[in-house]
């Protein structure tokens, strides 16, 4: 197989509040022999908030990020569900509206860039499943996670709206009964936990504006996984991770029950199965201690 190579859009949290996500992404890519070219020119995607204020500006900035992936002639890989949604949504709107694309390019041309629409945008989770392949991953597992019940937490912005999401990857995902993350857990040797909240919202995007609602959603998610007898949760989204790992106190207070479960980034889970060390995967950066190793 030809070596897989992608343009990596890290997003902001990988460089700040979830350093372990960046570390584990690079460690896993290294183990799998995937080459990631970091888009160091990329800006923040606006995280679904900038567009509430200035939709056009959000489109221009996201189109600029994609334009850099196009310059490399590579598929863009994201490691954050919200980066994925914002970038894919920009691509969808520009690819389907010539007028809008021309308007955005008028701005990009001012700085010598052009959005062409030639690069695909996909989340690292789907790059592993679609391009690398779970069968191949399974063969590479050295430390199967067979003694663990692992609760997948999908994160809204990877599964909804499904029509848009299913344009971006080959594995068709059913938003009400998704299986990508479950399949990845199984490939790593773990047992999956089925629970109602696995496709629900963690509340991240309303944390400042509606803290009570956000805390209840986080609390319900961790409680659901706990009641499903999970030893840990796993998520492909660093924003969900921030909610589930750092907000356990508010979450517990809001639902009247203590909640706390170790939460792994999808890359950390794969890394553990592939034999990466705790240090390589940044496990010490979690607020809820990873105490099962």
């Amino acid at each position, binding site marked *: 197989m030809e070596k897989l190579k992608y343009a990596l859009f890290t997003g902001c949290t990988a*460089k700040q509040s979830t*350093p372990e996500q960046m570390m584990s992404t690079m460690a896993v890519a290294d183990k799998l022999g995937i080459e990631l070219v970091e888009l160091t020119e990329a800006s*923040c995607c606006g995280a679904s908030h900038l567009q509430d204020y200035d939709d056009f*500006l959000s489109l221009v900035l996201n189109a600029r990020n994609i334009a850099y992936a196009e310059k490399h002639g590579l598929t863009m890989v994201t490691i954050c569900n919200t980066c994925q949604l914002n970038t894919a949504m920009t691509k969808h709107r520009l690819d389907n509206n010539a007028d809008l694309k021309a308007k955005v390019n008028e701005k990009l041309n*001012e700085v010598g860039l052009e959005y062409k629409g030639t690069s695909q945008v996909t989340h690292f989770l789907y790059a592993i499943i679609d391009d690398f392949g779970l069968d191949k991953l399974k063969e590479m597992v050295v430390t199967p996670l067979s003694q663990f019940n692992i609760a997948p937490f999908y994160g*809204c912005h990877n599964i909804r709206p499904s029509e848009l999401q299913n344009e971006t990857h080959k594995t068709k995902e059913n938003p009400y009964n998704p299986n990508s993350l479950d399949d990845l857990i199984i490939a790593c040797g773990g047992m999956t936990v089925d629970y109602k909240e696995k496709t629900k919202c963690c509340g991240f995007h309303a944390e400042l504006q509606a803290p*009570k609602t956000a805390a209840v959603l986080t609390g319900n998610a961790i409680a659901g996984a706990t009641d499903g007898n999970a030893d840990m949760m796993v998520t492909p989204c660093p924003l969900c991770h921030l909610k589930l790992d750092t907000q356990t106190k508010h979450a517990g207070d809001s639902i009247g029950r203590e909640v706390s479960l170790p939460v792994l980034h999808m890359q950390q889970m794969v890394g553990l199965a592939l034999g990466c060390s705790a240090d390589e995967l940044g496990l010490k*950066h979690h607020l809820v201690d990873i105490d099962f190793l």
Partner: protein
Amino acid sequence: MSTNTITTQKVNFKVFRFNADEDYLPYYEDYNMEVTSEEVVLDILDKIKWEKDGSFSYRRSCRHGICGACAIKVNGRSTLACKESMSTMIDFYGTDLVIEPLSIKRAVKDMIIDKGDFWEKHDAVHPYLVSDVEEHPEHEHLVTPEEAEELNEADLCIQCGACHYACPVVEINEDFFGPAAFAKAYRFEADVRDDAHASRLQELHQEKQGLWDCVKCMECAEVCPKDVNPIDKITKLHNMLFTEGVATSNVATRHAVGFKHSIAKNGVLDEGGLVLYSEMAGIVKHIPVALKMFKKGKIVPPWSITKSDNLDEIQKLIKSSSTAKF
């Protein structure tokens, strides 16, 4: 190659039953039925009533996806029963299906719920054209095709409640207007003949009930049987708050605007700086968690943030492409 052969499958239905006049608690009844590939969910409700139990109750009328009466939940997913094919449901969930009303806590009899909260929210957004209509107009009020296009999607709403009862915020916060009411408000906000713009928007952005309490989970866009895309309308209403000058300075508006400032400074976010900009004095409540995060290496001080390469490009684009003011 698809064929038009009708196939039959055995399906186990677990059906929510409750009569508020008689039952202390709801219960689930099992029905095993042969289902053909051309049936819709409403056919199953009909068969339960006609062949299994005449007391089984549900709302239905047009059977053509127009009246919005028959929305229920199948395996937790809001569904317009007359529009959703059984073969799709079996593809999604297999042959064990749970049939429930849109809201269990609002159940009155079986699939029938008290939709009062939905209509209350719907009425609260002034879902009608506010305009001084001349009694003897001298010419038509012309609306261009482009202007009409703006409200086409939102106009398709049939008030079935599928999105309202799929919204996790509605479930938690009973003051929240919900996606359907917002989509309806947008229908009139985007209408060039409407004169209420700013005054309607005033009510739409109040804390707890309003636009800023949306968690952006995209459930409403996913579930809508008429492709209204309510979250898209919520975003457009957010935009209108700024263009109509209705937005006031609060944690939500500062958060949206703060992204622009943060991106202009570094390209990537200054996460701590953004929270400070949004919260102002409210930042104190985040200190306990922030300290824990700092100890675990999760907070990068502003002077150590790696700025995006070619930051000057980003700054130029922000200058030339900004359309909103605050």
